[in-house]
């Protein structure tokens, strides 16, 4: 379970490996907020290597989305697997995020 952060142009790309759950959500939050603090505006969280997100994990995504928006930035999500896509649809969270099928499309959408 870890988060890797790299820059692609002016976009901060975060890979979530494993799970995003109550135990590690703060780590993700802190990493993204640190980048936001440095003045970064464009964020992409890639879930291609993510198996599971619990409700606390969803909470942190919503909270990050708000904070990035407040700073005039943008957040995109990409590569949600079928289970996660269903979860976002069933909870109407898909209405709160800009979600792309692939990383490339997400990068192009900024």
């Amino acid at each position, binding site marked *: 379970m870890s988060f890797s952060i790299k820059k692609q142009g002016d976009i901060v790309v975060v890979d979530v490996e494993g799970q995003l759950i109550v135990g590690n959500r703060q780590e993700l939050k802190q990493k993204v907020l640190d980048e936001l603090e440095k003045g970064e505006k464009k964020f992409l969280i890639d879930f291609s290597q993510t198996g599971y997100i619990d409700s606390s994990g969803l909470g*942190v995504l*919503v909270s990050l989305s708000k904070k990035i928006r407040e700073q005039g930035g943008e957040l995109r999500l990409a590569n949600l697997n079928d289970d996660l896509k269903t979860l976002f649809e*069933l*909870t*109407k*969270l898909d209405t*709160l995020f800009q979600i792309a099928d692939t990383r490339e499309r997400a990068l192009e959408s900024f």
Partner: protein
Amino acid sequence: MKELDVVLTAFREATGCEAAVWLEGPNGRLVATASSNAGASPPPFPPAHTEPPRRVITARGEMLVTAISGPRAAWLAIGPCGAGGAAELDAYRRFLLPVVTQYLQSALEVEHAAAELAERYEEINLLYTISEILGRAVTLEETAVTILEEVSGTVGARRASILVHDRVTDTLNVVAALGVVAAEAPPIAVDDPNSVSARVFREQHLRIVEEGEMLCDAERPYRKGAMMSVPIMWTSPTGGSEPLGVVNLSGRHGDQPFTAGDQKLMAAIATQIGTAIQNARLVRSSLNQQKLLQEMQLAHDLQMKLLPRADVVAPEATVSARVIPAESVGGDFYNLFRLGEGRTGVMIGDVSSHGYRAALIMALTMSATAIHAQRTSDPAQTLDALLHSVRDELESTEMFVSVFYGVVDPAAERLRYSNTGHPHAFVIGANGSCERLPALDPPLGMVPDAPAAQERPWASGEDLLLLFTDGISDARGRDGERLGEQAVLETVLKHRAEEPSEIVEHVFEILRQHMGDTPRRDDLTLVVLRS
């Protein structure tokens, strides 16, 4: 020495000569340890060990006095004798001396063994006494001074102290001392280079230091002369060994050195004290844990009491509901309301966290809903009012609540519902149909907008409203696989004609089979309603 008396008396009867064995007493005087004549007088001028036997003429007759070889100063005196006996004194000496020497030697060995046994007995008695003292008390502080008194009495040390390691401050603190008030003795840092106690603690090895080696002021109050410092060790059942403190002894009577026996004894006592310290710590932590468990149980009971009984909506609706929190308290809940005119309000919710914070939000949501649900039968208005009540709390804690709230009106055969982010809400028809009631909005707390509501037909007395939280569909089995929503739906469909309470039982049965003894990661909540 009774046996030797008998030998010497028999000797007199055979030879006509008196005989006595004399020992040098503590004041240099001779004392008869055995004699053929109870009233015999000590021989004057007994020869030294290196000197030959000496003939002594007394008023009663001639005597032959011989030093007996051995560790103690002792003499054999033969005579005076009856008529003609004096001539045989030398012959008698040659006969009697080996017998007496051998006897005396054996007697001395027995005496020595007895003395050693007495000493061992004292030590064993001390160990026994200490284990008894420790066994009676829960904390070391209660008993430490008594232990020190016993130890110093046996070892003959006037100063003694027990220092116990404080893991937070990494210092050795005096818990008991003889000759100084423990509370006034300053703590010693474990890394203090001048302290004997600290060094013994670090090296976990007994040390005896002479008076000149005293360099640490903190140790001065309980040191006098040479000091023996012994580490208090605790050996865990797994074999690991850990230092817990130090016992110090000093101020021996007559400045006698500490012997190997003292060292062994102290090591044994230190082990006992170590076990006592460890036991006391375990007792303390077990008491704390017990208290915590009791508090958690209380919180659990309180939370369960917030949930309504399923029959509060009877007879308009038949409901069965069950919540099993993952921890002692959880964030799942359900609520039931009688709304008049045969209508029933049913709610299921999941706070996006676990434990006490989630439980607080849950309690707040429960009580706010109870107020708002009675004011309107429109689910959207109820949830909007609820959102206003809990919004600040949700924002400050970064939590949110997924809620499904439905109002069943059997007379009008309508179900009106709002769903803010709750994924698992279904209407199961008597014919085996299964329709999901999808979320109309994201969970409460994520967006500021007022929730929406939707309406659909309701077959009174036939349709089932099935609500459950993701703790059930996401429940992991032994191999980590999820139970899945489909398994729950299939079970409910199979038993749809049965009573809600039976259906709930069936679902929890497949959960039990799926999970086995795998620990629960999330709260489990299930509500089934027919109306």
